[in-house]
């Protein structure tokens, strides 16, 4: 693997643990960036992708779980691998529900950690592609006029042109023109594809 393969962020308050994690990550050819606290991590920019976060649960100040929540609130979706010395079930459930990749109990088999890191990297890579696609779709959606958007919502609800015309108080011909623009701007080859796109972007359907 190359350095371009990604970066592993490590947040642990224990210096020797931090250092050993960094050493391990480096030994498989990945880049590692270490932080002594959750606050330190939040303060620093981390644009590098793909990435994953190896996070200690029990830390003074912000705990690992607190950091997970903060990141979710901020829309930062770096996959997280939790490390803990003493896991309890509720804590694990909470972390996994919030989207953690793995929850490992220290001392873990180092191969388990490395596997989790690879898995997390893969997930982030996929997520990155997903994200790029969604962003493209979002841009297409944003290019629609309000009227076109209205028409689209009715189309994906499965209404016929005639029905849409009635709903929106316009002629059937006008609906057809709007509909054509929608399909063109969204680069949708069929209504089915348009529905999928709308679903992905969470566009609400307009039912009568």
């Amino acid at each position, binding site marked *: 693997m190359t350095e371009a393969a990604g970066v592993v962020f490590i947040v642990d308050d224990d210096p*020797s*643990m931090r250092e*050993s994690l960094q050493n391990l990550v480096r*030994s498989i050819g990945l880049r590692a960036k270490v932080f002594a606290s959750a606050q330190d991590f939040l303060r620093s920019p981390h644009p590098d992708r793909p990435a994953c976060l190896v996070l200690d649960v*029990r830390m*003074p100040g912000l705990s690992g779980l607190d950091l997970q929540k903060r990141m979710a609130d901020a829309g930062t979706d770096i996959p997280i691998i939790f*490390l803990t010395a003493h896991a309890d079930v509720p804590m694990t459930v909470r972390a996994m529900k919030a989207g953690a990749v793995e929850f490992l109990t220290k*001392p873990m088999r*180092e191969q388990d950690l490395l596997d989790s890191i690879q898995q997390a990297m893969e997930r982030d890579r996929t997520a990155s592609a997903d994200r790029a696609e969604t962003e493209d779709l979002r841009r297409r959606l944003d290019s629609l006029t309000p009227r076109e958007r209205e028409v689209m919502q009715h189309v994906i609800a499965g209404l016929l042109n005639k029905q849409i015309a009635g709903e929106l108080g316009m002629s059937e011909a006008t609906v057809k023109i709007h509909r054509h623009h929608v399909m063109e701007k969204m680069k949708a080859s069929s209504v089915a594809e348009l529905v999928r796109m709308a679903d992905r972007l969470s566009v609400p359907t307009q039912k009568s």
Partner: protein
Amino acid sequence: LLATFFVAVALDYFFMDPIRTLFFDRWEKAVGLTVFAAVALFLVEFGVARRRDERALQNSQEWGQSVFDLSPTMNFAVDPAGTILSVNSISAEKLGYTTEELLGQSVMTAFHEADRQAIQENIARCMQQPGRTITYELRRLRKDGTTLWVRETAKAVQLKKSQAVVLITCEDITERKRTEDAKLHLAAIVESSDDAIISKDLQGVMRSWNKAAERIFGYTAAEAVGQPVTMLIPPRLADEERQILEKIRRGESIDHYETVRLHKEGREINIALTVSPIRDDAGNIVGVSKTARDITERKRTEEALRKTQSELAHVNRVATLGELTASLAHEINQPLGAIVNNAGACLRWLAAHNIGEARQSTEHVIRDAHRASQIIKRIRSLMTKAPPQKDWMDINEIIGEVIAFLRPELHAERVGVQMQLSDELPTVLGDRIQLQQVLLNIVMNAIEAIRGAGEGPRTLVLRTDKHDAQHILVAVQDSGPGIDAGHLDQPFEAFYSTKPRGLGMGLAISRSIIEAHGGRLWATANESRGATFQFTLPIQSEKPA
């Protein structure tokens, strides 16, 4: 008689032939005259002697009567039936009667009811052996009904052939009896005392020995009195007795001095001694009184109590460590995890032939392994079940140890610790492990309180200071929710706990530990928020030998 004699001579002179001549013509006449003269002489002599005797008798009676009357002792003369024939004024006065009231009365009326039989018997005894003196002590009865202790001497005398009287002299010994009673009373107290009470002279020779002394030391009074007190003292403490005697000679007392003495069987007994000087009327120290209390049982109880307390403290300590499992596991797993990581990394560096990185990884493995063993050592030292043992120690040092131990817990709970430790504290005498335990309990409770407080500052202040001239103070102040002023004692009750897993014994045990150290543990509510748990420990003035 004289006249008769002269008449006879004259008759002879004038009427015997020849007239006015003393001429004995016949020897019969001479014999007759001689007989006559002898008879006359005898008669005269007889009369004179009689008169002299009569006068002498009269004199002696008068003298006796005045002695009888004037004597400061009470005198009675009674007939064999006990009727008072004569009594002096002192008697009447002492008994509250007039002489007239007593004369002719039975002497019984002036005796205590319980002694009437005895006096009757005594009078009878006198009568049986006239002239013999008997002495006895009895109770007289005053006219007003009060009693009077008397010592009486009685003797029967034959006044005339027909009449014998019993003379009784009687001395008031009420005062003496009272003193004697008081002495008996005191002696009874001494005898019935549970403590050995021994007196000895200034040379250390024992002079008295009570029952308790016999019970405690095993010697009877006969075996002990007259012996040197050193027979009770273990040879290694011989110097102690000398010091005690010196102190006593200076007029000082020794109060409740705990030491060891020897039983007759040779075993040692723990006793508490109180020694004070005995003075004579002039205030000179003439001896020593020693009170020894057997405290073997008390010592044993104390020992047992200390042991129980230590066991309890151990249970509490283990329970505390149970509560700390999470943070202890975290603490110990940190270096273990690092070891695994570094060793794993090392293998991979070796596979990549990166010897430099591999070497460094190995060095880290060694370092982390050392750290792990240090942590285990620390936990062990707090888990140790050591017998109670008092040592001189710096309380600040103990605080440091406990905080170091609780660092992961404090860390995890994000509690900031402020140390305000005085560096002018004397060392105190105490059981290190028990005091660690007390601090552990208090700080754990403080952490618990802070955890429950939710938002707000999360601080713990540890303060040491001099409390007063005799005590140092250790205070642990938390920023938890605090305690209602009315319930400041509640946390100290056994089985009181706010923790779901708490034993509720921590503070109760802590308080008993502190009290066993001669200190006090209490809680106060802080002005702003939280509570302060604080305890005092006595500063010992002198280090024990």
